[in-house]
């Protein structure tokens, strides 16, 4: 190890192009040991391409990579891992049916020899795992089943795995996307302890507040170029946003001009058929209103909106549209009642990956686009789908492009276009800006504001408090399946939301149940 070299990892003048796109232009990125280095940029800015070049998933066209001053050209992530460069993916790569320790030591199990056989030494594996957990101050039982522990613990195990390989560089891609605030704090504790052990961390995230909590240095990428690298202390949110989008964005949220009118939907005492889910939730939705639903992970917000939309069963309560019980049993009923649902899980429950944009846009509207003979009116279908996507500025080479090749933000726009084509009165958006970049987020916000102004009603479930406050007329907060309050006007503050979201400690709730 060269002692004069202040950088553990140096990527110099990296270039990479794909047919028609220059994905990386002469990018130079340097990482100091024992620092948390945030890598920021809109989706498509080149962050993941850069990382894929590091891990050998893509072949770089130009440039050099040095690890500890030595040239490093990994052929695959396994080789990178063996050299102490590890990546924690947004979607965790765990084997749910194996134990925690089996996951950590996968492929390099400790064995002992008995006669001609090399048998797995479970005791040693458990012992080593416990050591590892202790070193990282984690409390995870090595012999527990991976699938039965929480996502945050699974993630912690992945980090432990990286440490077990003596990682000197750990890349984390959106590590907090499915964690609650408490879990995020725990993650940060682990990250800090890694930093103390002189590990360098590349932290990729869209969440500003986190970046400023954890990062020592920040690099910003835009359009395949590295715009700047600076200490976190020299930047603030607005500066960062400006750097990322390349334009002045003093306003993160558009002004919502719509004024809520009369009540269009009434939910009364809605109770899930799952006893662990929501109970007795009542609320009204008004015309032209954006109603935010806030709460912590596990507050049952998604379950509530999916039940309203007919995807989950309820045992009690009604959903009325303009005073009439809508009797919604299936998503089809909900669509007939003028509702649309943009799901939280875009990949799992939103897009049809192998279908093109036209097909993805028109799927729920096919009933209206079928003529008397039963054939589809292709001309109108293409025209309407194209119009909608143009309206929402979906960026795509052609309308026949398969949706899976679009970026997250553009996929989301297609899904918004999909539901707008059904001419809904009520649009439910579950985490509408999750995993999409700042520029696209702003565009989604503008669409929401426009819809509200046009008299549509929107229910927005969100975990991002600035988003709830910036976009909603009114915020309903859930905690452990109960409605704990509504906030309007000046009451809409982060403190108030947090107070309502944490209304019941888990134990309080249990006691109330018992009484």
């Amino acid at each position, binding site marked *: 190890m060269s002692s004069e070299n202040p950088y553990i990892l140096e990527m110099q003048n990296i270039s990479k192009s794909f047919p028609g796109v220059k994905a990386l232009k002469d990018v130079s990125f340097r990482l100091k040991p024992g620092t948390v280095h945030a890598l920021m940029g809109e989706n498509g800015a080149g962050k993941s391409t850069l990382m894929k070049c590091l891990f050998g998933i893509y072949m770089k066209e130009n440039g050099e990579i040095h690890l500890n001053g030595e040239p490093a050209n990994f052929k695959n992530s396994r080789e990178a891992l063996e050299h102490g460069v590890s990546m924690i993916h947004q979607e965790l790569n765990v084997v749910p049916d194996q134990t925690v320790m089996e996951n950590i030591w996968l492929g390099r199990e400790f064995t002992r020899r008995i006669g001609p056989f090399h048998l797995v030494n479970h005791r040693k594996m458990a012992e080593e795992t416990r050591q590892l957990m202790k070193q990282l101050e984690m409390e995870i039982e090595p012999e527990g089943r991976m699938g039965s522990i929480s996502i945050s613990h699974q993630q912690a195990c992945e980090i432990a795995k990286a440490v077990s390989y003596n990682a000197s560089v750990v890349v984390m891609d959106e590590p907090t996307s499915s964690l609650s605030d408490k879990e995020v704090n725990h993650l940060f504790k682990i990250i800090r302890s890694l930093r103390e052990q002189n590990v360098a961390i590349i932290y990729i995230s869209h969440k500003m507040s986190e970046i400023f909590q954890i990062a020592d240095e920040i690099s910003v990428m835009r359009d395949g170029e590295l715009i700047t690298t600076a200490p976190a202390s020299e930047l603030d949110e607005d500066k960062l946003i400006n750097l990322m989008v390349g334009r002045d964005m003093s306003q993160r949220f558009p002004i919502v001009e719509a004024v809520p009118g009369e009540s269009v939907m009434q939910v009364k005492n809605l109770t899930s058929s799952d006893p662990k889910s929501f109970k007795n939730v009542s609320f009204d939705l008004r015309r032209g209103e954006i109603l935010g639903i806030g709460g912590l992970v596990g507050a049952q917000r998604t379950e509530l909106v999916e039940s309203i939309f007919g995807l989950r069963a309820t045992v009690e309560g009604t959903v009325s549209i303009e005073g009439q019980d809508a009797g919604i049993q299936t998503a089809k009923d909900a669509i007939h009642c003028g509702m649309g649902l943009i799901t939280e899980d875009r990949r799992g429950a939103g897009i*049809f*990956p*192998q279908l093109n944009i036209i*097909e993805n846009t028109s*799927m729920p509207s096919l009933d209206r686009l079928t003529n008397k003979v039963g054939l*589809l009116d292709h001309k109108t279908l293409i025209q309407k789908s194209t119009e909608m996507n143009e309206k929402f500025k979906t960026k795509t080479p052609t309308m026949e492009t398969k949706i899976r090749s679009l970026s997250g933000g553009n996929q989301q726009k297609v899904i918004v276009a999909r539901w707008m084509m059904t001419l809904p009165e009520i649009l439910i958006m579950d985490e509408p800006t999750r995993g999409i970049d700042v520029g696209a987020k702003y565009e989604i916000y503008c669409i929401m504001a426009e819809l509200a102004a046009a008299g549509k009603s929107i229910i927005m479930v969100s975990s991002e408090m600035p988003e709830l406050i910036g976009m909603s007329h009114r915020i309903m907060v859930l905690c452990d399946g109960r409605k704990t309050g509504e906030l309007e006007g000046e009451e809409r503050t982060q403190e108030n939301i947090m107070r309502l979201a944490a209304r019941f400690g888990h134990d309080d709730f249990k006691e109330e149940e018992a009484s």
Partner: protein
Amino acid sequence: MKQLTRKSIGEFASKNTGYVTFAAMVVILGVLTGGGSLRLLSWQNLAIAEAVRALAALGVGIIIITKGIDLSLGQVVGLCACVSASLAQTPDYVSSLYPGLNLPVIAPILAGVGVGALFGLLNGFLVAYGKLPPFIATLGTMTIAAGLQLIYTHASTVGSLKNEYKVIAQGFLGPIPNMVIYVAIAVLFLWVLMNHTKIGKRIYAIGGNPTAARVSGISVKFETMKVYLMAGVLYGIAGVLLSSRLGLANALTGDNMELDAIAAATVGGVSHSGGVGKVGGIVVGVLTLGLINFGMTYLGVDSYYQLLVKGFIIIAAVYLDMRRAA
């Protein structure tokens, strides 16, 4: 006009590998057989030989598009063939299953198609509403159909079919075998269904992402049921035509046809991960495997080696298709 450059030809070829492969094979085989394989008679033979398989492959093809599978195909086709044939035996035939029975030709056709439809409904119900994995559900119905086939025929051959029944499949319209006409109608129907109706779009949607399909207001169960039902009807037609063509049916009729049909659909570009597949592709898949069969028979290749070649081609086609999709 678009200029025909080397690049555009290459692009066309890579987008339509199925068609190009088939065309290339026709040419090569034509050369190897000294033009013998290009004669009208050869084409008629090929078409007649592959017609029944084409109907079966179309049926199982749309099932595979929904990310399902149907192992019962061969036995159901066989059962439909037996039921249909049993109602079309000549009334004076001594070993007839129903001696003296003399029904108009439409009766056996309806019976055969009806049995196919029933099995389609059963498969669909088990998969869509019973939530059984399609492999297991149809493994069960396959065994049931095989048993029924034996029970119904008393394990003997249902033969001596009426001429007006045999002519359904054996007849010609000018130089065109009747079989080709039936298949053409089925292909046209399915092509319109898959590309120009909401049912088709929904089938692709269900195969691609069933959860998203449900959110989009598609009743996934009902549509899945419809797919298995349509496949069952196609098997029924295939069974009727098979018995009409052979002039008989027995408990062995249709055995292993599921494997040929699934292979053909797969070679034709239907993806087993769901949501991908074209009606035209399935037809080309059937013809490609058929041409290989035909060519090898024509050239006198030992039957054992024919199996080897077919096996390799299926694996290679799927492997390359998966790589192209990745």
